[in-house]
């Protein structure tokens, strides 16, 4: 029952062990302890979605999970998923459709979009909008993002990726 706890987790395939203050959020741990600054800190209360990461295969809010809760878990961030090529089709579509401007929401948006395509490879625009409803973008007005995700569903089928 300590305020700092030894925690071991796997981040993007590499095992790390750190002594973590109980109050530290997962996203702060990833950014400040591991230097993985691709996951962003926006609202810090679960509204904006900029801190979205994957824990044991499912997307979560990095600001609504304590880092100590990830003990024994497999965490994947935008850095790992980008390097593995898993997001390649989506990244290409976002680029081509101009689906980002400042880029702050983009890592979270890509993880939410990938999560949708994993569960539903052929979503309609309404389903795309519902699935990214928890991710704020203050630049694009979402139209281009929905276009890009829709494009990615086609290229993923053609390329046989993902």
């Amino acid at each position, binding site marked *: *029952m*300590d305020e700092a706890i030894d925690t071991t987790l796997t981040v993007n395939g590499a095992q790390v062990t750190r002594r973590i203050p109980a*109050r530290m*959020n997962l996203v702060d741990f990833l950014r400040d302890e591991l230097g993985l600054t691709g996951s962003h800190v926006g609202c*810090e209360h679960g509204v904006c979605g900029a801190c979205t990461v994957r824990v044991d295969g499912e997307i979560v809010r990095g600001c609504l999970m304590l880092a100590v809760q990830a003990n024994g878990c497999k965490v994947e961030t935008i850095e790992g998923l980008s390097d593995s090529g898993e997001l390649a089709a989506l990244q290409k579509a976002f680029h081509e459709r101009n689906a980002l401007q400042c880029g702050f929401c983009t890592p979270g948006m890509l993880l939410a979009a990938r999560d949708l395509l994993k569960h539903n490879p052929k979503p309609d625009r309404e389903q795309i*909008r519902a699935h990214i409803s*928890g991710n704020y973008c203050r630049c694009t007005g979402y139209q281009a993002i929905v276009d890009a995700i829709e494009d990615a569903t086609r290229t993923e089928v053609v390329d046989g990726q993902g």
Partner: protein
Amino acid sequence: MKAASFAYAKPRALAEALELIARPGAKVLAGGQSLIPSLNMRLSSPELLVDINGLDELKGIRFDKDVVRIGALTTHADIERSDVVKKHLPLLAEAVPHIAHPAIRNRGTIGGSLALADPAAEYPACVLALDATIVATGKEGSRKIKAPEFFKSLFETDLKPGELLTAVEFKAQKKDERSAFVELARRHGDYAIVGLAAFAGNGTKRLAYFGAADRAVLAPNAAKAKDLESAKAALAKDLQPPADLYHSSETKLHLARVLLERAWTKL
């Protein structure tokens, strides 16, 4: 903002958890999707956080003798994907996609939502509409609480200090019973402006509103009405919704009637 410091414990057994949550300044951490925001904003600063996620006996959905028992730690996502829920609790299956967003549904739990008793949350209205039973466990054992007795006031429930909500039990919906779930929100996944979980069977209706009072509430007068028009009129006797930042009490009552219209033909 960042949370204030707290001690953290992750018990592996229910007895150990019950001992820990009885300590002064202790708070239960279930899915954390409401607690952690309030920690981050320093609206809450417990001395000890008791993380119950190691208690596997509180997870999962069981169907036995016409009762669906959902463990407190079952996530919204688990409920959303459950075939048992789709088949036997269609109201719940209809409600879950309205709860927040996918990333939050992956962590948030039914027990956490019920124990928090947010007046604008979906589950409390569902358990009222389905006349479910809440199971609370303390050092002296478990007791069962009928849904209408469980919600006491704004964020207040019948749970006693040192008690843990461990499960919720629903009667499986029968073939001749019907239900409907409707809610109005500005953005998909936001807390409802007003919402309605409705059930009809055996000649009676139960209409449970959320976002319309200090807690989820039944509308007994509207439920007794013979037709839609008299039900809409009777709703004024059941609801006096408090105004929020954007909606007056009159607007909320009007919207509650709109939802009743939308649900009525399904009942």
